[in-house]
């Protein structure tokens, strides 16, 4: 049973003694059934916060200030996010550092069986069988015996598979993966990515994949959204974005990937730092670091995200010129 996920103008607010800050501003995303969407950005750009808001696990001092999270059901009607717990197990999440996300006192099998018992009301035996099946699905061999093993006996890659299995135990329509391979070896990374692809092909689950690695994006994702300073600056299909980006930040990111470096020349990087959440400039937030900035970019509010075609949008005032300029990597 496929579902489409629509996130519309999501804004997250954190109240601090010095005033409110907004780690996520007007975040919009749509995910078709079976689609793999990439979410790219530097640390602090808001990608993790946005996804935590969607799953409902924001930190204590943060809350959703505005916006909608909608999931289509069997009749293609959209269920609003106000029905949080219903949504919660339709959208599951896996995390960056698998070690700390597993309870060290409980066997891995029990942790996968837990959501099965909670949501589907299975008995201990039924849940065990089901969990072992999920173990096999995520590629854990000797699943029967591994059920009773404790997390500290597992390698990083195995632990991540366990977390994926636990996420799948919720029978989700959408899986959010927050940099699941950043803490793992490259070889394991490949395995996990292949696993995710296989799951999508077999079950039709949609995946939102958070990463800062464009290489992974090019391998895995159908579409990609780029975040900068709590806002989405560009959204496009992967091929279009990587070949012809329409936002200076996206261009900078692509250029600074080691894979696209040229021999005997210094590795390009974007000069400067992203603005701090409590010191956001007015106008375009990328302005201080942008080589295409013009006077108009200094307007009082950030440029809006503009739909440039049915599946593309970006937030640069000069996108048309950049398109005709034919941005490429040099």
């Amino acid at each position, binding site marked *: 049973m496929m579902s489409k996920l629509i996130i519309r103008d999501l804004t997250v607010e954190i109240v601090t003694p010095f005033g409110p800050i907004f780690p996520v501003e007007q975040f919009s995303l749509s995910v078709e059934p079976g689609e793999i969407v990439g979410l790219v950005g530097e640390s602090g750009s808001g990608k993790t916060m946005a996804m935590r808001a969607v799953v409902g*696990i924001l930190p204590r001092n943060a809350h959703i200030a505005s916006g909608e999270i909608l999931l289509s059901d069997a009749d293609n009607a959209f269920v609003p996010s106000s029905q949080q717990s219903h949504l919660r197990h339709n959208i599951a999440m896996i995390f960056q550092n698998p070690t700390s996300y597993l309870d*060290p006192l409980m066997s891995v099998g029990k942790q996968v069986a837990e959501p099965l018992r*909670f949501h589907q009301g299975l008995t201990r035996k039924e849940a065990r069988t089901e969990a072992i099946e999920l173990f096999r699905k995520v590629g854990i061999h000797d699943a029967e015996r591994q059920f009773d093993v404790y997390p500290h006996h597992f390698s990083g890659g195995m632990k991540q598979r366990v977390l994926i299995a636990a996420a799948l135990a*919720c029978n989700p329509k959408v899986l959010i993966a927050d940099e699941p391979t950043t803490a793992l070896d490259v070889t394991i990374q490949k395995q996990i990515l292949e696993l995710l692809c296989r799951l999508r092909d077999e079950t039709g689950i949609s995946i939102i994949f958070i990463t800062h690695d464009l290489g992974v994006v090019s391998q895995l994702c159908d579409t990609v959204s780029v975040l900068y300073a709590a806002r989405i600056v560009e959204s496009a299909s992967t091929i279009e974005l990587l070949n012809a980006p329409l936002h200076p930040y996206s261009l900078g990111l692509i250029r600074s990937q080691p894979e696209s470096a040229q021999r005997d020349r210094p590795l390009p990087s974007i000069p400067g730092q992203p603005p701090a959440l409590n010191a956001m400039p007015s106008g375009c937030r990328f302005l201080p670091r942008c080589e295409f900035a013009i006077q108009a970019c200094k307007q009082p509010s950030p440029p809006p995200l503009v739909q440039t075609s049915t599946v593309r949008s970006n937030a640069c005032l000069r996108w048309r010129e950049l398109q005709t300029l034919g941005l490429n990597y040099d």
Partner: protein
Amino acid sequence: MERFKFILFRPLQLLPVLFGVSVISFVMVRSIPGDPVRLLLGTRATPEVAAKIRAQYGLDEPLMTQYFLFLKNLFQGDFGRSIVYKTSTFNVVAERIGPTVFLLTYVLVMAILITLILSTWAARRQGRLPDVIVRSYSMVGLGLPTFWLGIILIMQFSIALNWFPTSGYGESVAENLYYLFLPAVSITLALSPVLIRNLRASLISEMESDYATAARSRGMSENGIYFSHVLPNSLVPAITLLGINFAWLIGGTVVVEQVFSVPGIGQLMISSIFARDYLVVQLITLVVAIAVIAVNFIVDVLTAVIDPRVHL
């Protein structure tokens, strides 16, 4: 199961400690200034009995020999004779150990319950009124002297309201529970602040942990997460802390037995000190030391049961 092998090995590691304990007990009594015979027998000692005692304890022998005699006597079950009670110290202590054990257990149960309830209440309502109340109590409570609490409780609940007796132990178990209620409350009120502070902090920290977040992301209820994940993970440091405080607990029991005239080994210890009944003092010290070692061992076992990462 293999991680439980250490249960067999740990007692071996404790042997040197037991050895050291016996040495210290021995040295303690031998350090008392004055004629040992008089110390052991009191002032009215006939020469024949004095000679017998000298031989039995080897009081004219070098210290090392005395120590081995001491150990030999220990293993034969001879712990010496009480001057005051005119019977073996073993009998004297055995008679009075009951009330103390009862009181200790009573306090442990009460303290564990109170700590669990108050810490949970405070941690799950962090920042709000219950939390403020519990935190204030655990702050002020650190400075509550057990003996003073006992007396205030007597004043209020025994004398003024006449709900409880002021002293004694009672006959049946039900009576024991009744007589020892106020003593147990005094100790609990003084012990629990430290335990609550630790458990509350652990609970809050575990509630914000990554694995709790992961469980929440799967739609688990807060209650489910609390009892399946947060509480077990918080118990390990809490149990360790309780083990560390067992020594304090014994001290509190000694004091409370004085306040409420409970006929346990705490009161016996104090009266023996004033009566210069040193062999009784020695035996009680030894017994309590062994109890502490045993409790620490139990704490280690419990920790291993809960936390699978622990091994030898």
